[in-house]
């Protein structure tokens, strides 16, 4: 018959690594016996003494932790805040994009608002869980394989910009946000053709006109690559200058020019997608789709103008600083 002590020792050692179990088990048995003996000689009954000795030792899980040699947390103090910050950022960027795509594709397939909302909510959950899981796993692996002293030494140059100051400077968050955005856009251009989220009768249809692959999409991808390189060069330089502002102007003209031309000439959407939209909206798409395209074109132009202006403002702000 297993005694209370046996059950206690088992509860403690089951959480410990195999190799430590028998040694700790033997020690615990000895300790409990000694504690019990002391209590008995103080007048307690044997059963009471055993029970009280175990109470004195504390919960098995709490005791097991004291005997345990390895890391006692999934993500420790060194990495916790970083994990929290980056997971929050990724959630805020990735979840809305994916959920919006899911809702859009559902609406295209079923033209039902409730289905689209279902798809949206479902995507929010699924994407959020994925992001949380992979971020946590990555940091847990970091925690166990890259101890703090192995990290490259911290440099003051990598400090984030204080909010409101130094508008001409380029910081890590700007650069990374831009690169992520460019990456997602490029990814979208490619994925919408090969594995489009939009499905009709179970078959994926490309969202953008496949003919665009002859010239325009490669051109856009090249522009995105140029923007990525520009972003990295700018980051390396550390702050905006007149030449970077001018180069930014050129990139914006190229990108906006290409996008606007395609939109106004109704070369953007794929014929299949147009047909599907037409079906879903009862044949009226010919009237409002061009209008939507024009609105998008205007928005793109406005954003580009703002981006160019901001580039020049930052260049001017940077020149005001004493150094660089």
């Amino acid at each position, binding site marked *: 018959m297993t005694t209370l002590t046996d059950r206690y020792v088992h509860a403690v050692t089951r959480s410990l690594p195999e190799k430590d179990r028998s040694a700790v088990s033997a020690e615990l048995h000895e300790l409990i016996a000694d504690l019990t003996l002391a209590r008995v000689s103080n007048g307690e009954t044997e059963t009471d003494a055993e029970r009280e000795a175990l109470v004195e030792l504390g919960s098995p899980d709490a005791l097991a932790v004291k*005997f345990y040699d390895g890391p006692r947390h999934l993500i420790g103090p060194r990495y916790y805040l970083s994990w929290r910050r980056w997971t929050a950022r990724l959630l805020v960027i990735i979840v809305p994009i994916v959920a919006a795509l899911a809702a859009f594709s559902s609406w295209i397939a079923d033209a039902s608002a409730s289905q689209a909302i279902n798809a949206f909510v479902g995507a929010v959950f699924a994407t959020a869980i994925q992001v949380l899981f992979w971020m946590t796993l990555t940091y847990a692996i970091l925690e166990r394989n890259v101890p703090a002293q192995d990290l490259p030494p911290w440099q003051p140059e990598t400090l984030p910009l204080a909010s409101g100051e130094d508008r001409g400077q380029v910081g890590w968050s700007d650069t990374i946000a831009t690169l992520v955005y460019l990456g997602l856009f490029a990814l979208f251009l490619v994925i919408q053709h090969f594995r489009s989220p939009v499905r009709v009768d179970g078959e994926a249809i490309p969202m953008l006109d496949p003919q665009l692959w002859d010239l325009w999409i490669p051109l856009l991808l090249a522009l995105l690559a140029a923007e990525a390189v520009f972003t990295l060069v700018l980051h390396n330089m550390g702050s905006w200058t007149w030449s970077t502002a001018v180069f930014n102007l050129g990139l914006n003209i190229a990108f906006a020019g290409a996008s606007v031309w395609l939109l106004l000439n109704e070369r953007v959407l794929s014929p299949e997608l147009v047909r599907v939209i037409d079906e879903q909206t009862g044949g009226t798409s010919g009237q409002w789709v061009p209008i939507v395209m024009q609105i998008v074109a205007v928005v793109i132009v406005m954003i580009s103008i703002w981006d160019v202006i901001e580039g020049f403002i930052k260049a001017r702000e940077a020149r005001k600083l004493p150094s660089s």
Partner: protein
Amino acid sequence: MEYEEVLKAHRLELRRGSVVLASLIALRTPGYGYGLLEQLGTAGIEVEANTLYPLLRRLEDQGLLSSDWDTSAKRPRKFYSVSESGTQMITDLTAELHDITTAMNRLTDQEQP
């Protein structure tokens, strides 16, 4: 936080390191875990069994203690004794403790005009 809680936390921090030195000193004479527990308690070092036993394992892992099993009695009992490096550690840690006390005295003297 209440004063008592804060006091308890800081006392714990203050005493935490001293249990190591106290155990090493006591184990210059080989002893059993439970005997050490009582010995420390009598000497004035407050420590609980569930803290002391894992600590002894750790000190043995660090090479400061050596252990053996006494199979002569009815049930086998493990006894510890301080090793050579443990003895050296006693000297070094005692000096450290002395330095701390001296520094405290210096600070206290400076405080009083």
